[in-house]
């Protein structure tokens, strides 16, 4: 049987690079297998996918040795165009993953390139649009789409020709938890119903590990682990703890083995040990009744000591759609707040209005001093030719970037760019409030840990911190309060444990494993809860 994908001692160096990006990589993917590629940032995951799609070395140049074959096509002889017949590829940035002007044309494009008849193209477009639930977008211009919609359209274009192999580089990085889970389920469906082999690189392993047959782990360009999910998690506990999922860390903290690959498996294990109470219907996130009567979250009165507040904020688009509706919010100095909600809920708009980048249609914003805002893409802040041109030397030292002073800002890693952008917005007069928009997109857990430490240090110095994020794990580890937006309104505003332990989608993996019991949201809290239960059970 021909492998869907095979790497045979493949090494590769980008043009002018001092070190190889891939080193002697060997593994194979059987038809119908679902494999997750894990690894920290800059470990070689993206290069591996580019090699599988033929972009490396045909498009990027550089030097390569060894062999990569996709469905029998050797990338030495076949370029990305030929490989497109057998492999659909989705790279990281959806903005550059679409090339036509309308969604329908984008989905038709790969089919037309294969020389299919108009009827076959029309049928293919219809099929993939229905599969990905984007039929209502077919006549829309791609410029009008949100990041999440664009990601689905790009995935549709990659899948339109029904390739037998799909290669995806962080496909959920732009998506909210609901859309991210849906996308992984779609991949699972393609895998099960069409027998499509899937290789997906992902930082949020908890999202896709339960669906995976195997996990390959990359580190410094080498393949260091190739094992089923549970074995890989055991390996990670010993060799790369940053790759452990929250459920695996929960089990480790509780002293349980083996680590579970997903919520279902974790719950089954805990139930078999008698550590999980019978499931109960959790109350909706952040809506726990305090005095018997159900009610909406309280409307924040702009407290006298608020670092930043807004009242009656409404923002209407030119077409009349309201993005924010009569919204009140007050941020207290030193408090860390997570702002959550699905794509299009109004999170980014709220941050931009609070920072003075946009004007609200109605309502007012009051702040005690400067409001610093870090937008989604840290690269947008970098406009000089050298890192030390962006910010003063002391600030570089504060953020541990002094060694990169002479580098071009575009040549440093994603995590370093993020730190540099944060140094830029925090330089000068100390801000009374710091707002961050999706700061952990594409970040590994080590870089997230560093960011959380910095945000805690800022809040301890009295700065109010507001982070718009889809990342429930970040919110649980960083925030004291969670504000949940929906349709431009606040639908939950409560302490983090209350919001993130009571939901289905806006809940951490630990909370989902424990069913919200003890309002434990982080593996540390969950581990303590389980250990306490084990102690009680063990007592005579």
């Amino acid at each position, binding site marked *: 049987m021909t492998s869907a994908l095979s790497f045979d001692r493949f090494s590769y160096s980008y043009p002018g690079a001092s070190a190889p990006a891939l080193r002697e990589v060997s593994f194979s993917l059987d038809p119908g297998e679902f494999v997750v590629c894990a690894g920290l940032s800059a470990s070689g995951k993206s290069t591996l996918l580019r090699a599988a*799609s*033929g*972009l490396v070395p045909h*498009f990027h140049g550089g030097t390569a040795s060894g062999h990569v074959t996709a469905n029998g096509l050797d990338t030495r002889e076949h*370029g*990305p*165009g*030929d490989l*497109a*017949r057998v492999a659909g*590829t989705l*790279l990281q*940035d959806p*903005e*550059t993953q*679409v*090339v*036509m*002007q*309308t969604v329908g*044309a984008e989905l038709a*494009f*790969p089919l*037309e*390139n294969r*020389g*299919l*008849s*108009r009827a076959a193209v029309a049928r293919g477009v219809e099929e993939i649009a229905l599969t990905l639930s984007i039929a*209502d977008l077919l*006549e*829309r*211009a*791609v*410029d*009008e789409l949100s990041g999440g919609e664009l990601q689905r359209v790009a995935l549709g*274009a*990659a899948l339109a*020709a029904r390739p037998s192999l799909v290669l995806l580089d962080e496909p959920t990085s732009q998506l909210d938890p609901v859309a991210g889970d849906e996308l992984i389920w779609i991949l699972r469906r393609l895998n099960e119903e069409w027998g499509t082999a899937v290789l997906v690189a992902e930082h949020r392993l908890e999202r896709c590990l339960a669906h995976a047959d195997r996990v390959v782990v990359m580190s410094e360009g080498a393949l260091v682990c190739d094992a089923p999910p549970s074995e890989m998690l055991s390996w990670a506990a010993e060799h790369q703890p940053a790759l452990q999922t929250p459920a695996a860390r929960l089990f480790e903290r509780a002293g349980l083995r083996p680590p579970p690959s997903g919520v279902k498996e974790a719950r089954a294990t805990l139930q078999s040990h008698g550590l999980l109470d019978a499931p109960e219907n959790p109350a909706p996130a952040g809506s726990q009744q305090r005095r018997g009567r159900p009610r909406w979250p309280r409307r924040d009165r702009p407290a006298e000591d608020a670092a930043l507040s807004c009242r009656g904020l409404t923002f209407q688009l030119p077409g009349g759609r309201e993005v924010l509706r009569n919204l009140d919010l007050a941020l207290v100095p030193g408090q860390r707040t997570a702002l959550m909600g699905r794509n299009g809920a109004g999170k980014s708009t709220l941050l*931009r209005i609070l*920072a003075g*980048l946009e004007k609200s249609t109605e309502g007012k914003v009051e702040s005690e001093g*400067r409001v*610093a*805002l*870090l*937008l989604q*893409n840290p690269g*947008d*802040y*970098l*406009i*000089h030719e050298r890192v030390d041109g962006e910010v003063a030397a002391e600030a570089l030292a504060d953020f541990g970037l002094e060694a990169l002073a002479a580098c071009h800002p*575009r040549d440093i890693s994603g995590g370093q760019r993020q730190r540099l*952008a944060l140094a*830029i*917005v925090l*330089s*000068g*007069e100390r801000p009374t409030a710091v707002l961050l928009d999706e700061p952990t997109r594409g970040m590994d857990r080590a870089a997230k840990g560093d960011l959380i430490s910095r945000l805690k240090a800022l809040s301890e110095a009295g700065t109010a911190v507001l982070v718009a994020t889809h990342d429930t794990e970040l919110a649980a580890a960083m925030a004291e309060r969670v504000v949940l937006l929906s349709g431009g309104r606040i639908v939950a505003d409560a302490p983090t444990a209350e919001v993130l332990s009571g939901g289905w989608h806006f809940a951490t993996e630990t909370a989902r494993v424990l069913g919200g019991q003890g309002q434990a949201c982080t593996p540390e809290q969950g581990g303590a809860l389980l250990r306490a239960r084990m102690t009680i059970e063990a007592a005579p």
Partner: protein
Amino acid sequence: MSSLASSTVLLRARSSVSALYGFALIALALAFTHPLILLAVAAATFGAARLSGCQRQLRGAVAFAIPLALMLAVINALLVRDGVTVLWRFGELPLFGQIDLTAEAFVYGFLLALRVVVIIAASALLVAIVDPDDVLRRMRRTAFRSALTATLATRMIGVLSRDARRMDQARRCRPDGGGSGRRAQLLMVGSVAAGALDRAADVAATLELRGYATRVAPPRGDSLPYSRADRAVLVSGLGLLALLILGAAFGLASFEPYPRITIVTGLNELLYGALIVLTALAAPLISQKGRP
């Protein structure tokens, strides 16, 4: 292109037919300076835009055209000395000599301005009603490399304009507001340009991954039959071209600005203008009455 807009006949017609229609309106505005005909083409253009839901695009284009047109009108009035009816004598100016404002130069300048506005509006209508993806699809069959360049360029316009908007917002988030003046502007332009190379490479990689480079020709005879929308717009477009040829052949709507304004305005010109409006609006009006 929204789903509402694409329900109109001009947007549903195939790109070759829509392009013929748009170019016919532009050609009429280029061929005649007679104010009645220019007003008729303007009415046809704005009427077609309104019936196709493209008014927003036209409003933007006209807002851009008006300052340019006014500048042309002023320059023509001040610098052209061919008229004989002097309205105002400015006297002798260094380099320019004697400056006289004549009624003929003033009127012709105004008509030039009107013509510029109508041409830009008709061009905006052309851009709005022609599906660029369909144009590129047809180009790919005959001019592969040009189509590749055009595909990259059309995509990059949107990508880079959004990049520039985001970078401008990031600049405003800097504590010093990102500075001001020419140096700050140069830094921004340099940064967008530096990013453009990476973005272009990413889009080009996507084209590769979608199989553009190894494109296979579609089977022969695989073209769609003309729909009612195609036929309606084709008849309107050909009608406009026929009117253009007839008008030029019979010397209709003649206009001479200098030395004295000679303008022929009779029943023929009125009928000719009305025919232009009716022919242009026939296709979109038919579609309003029922699905073509």
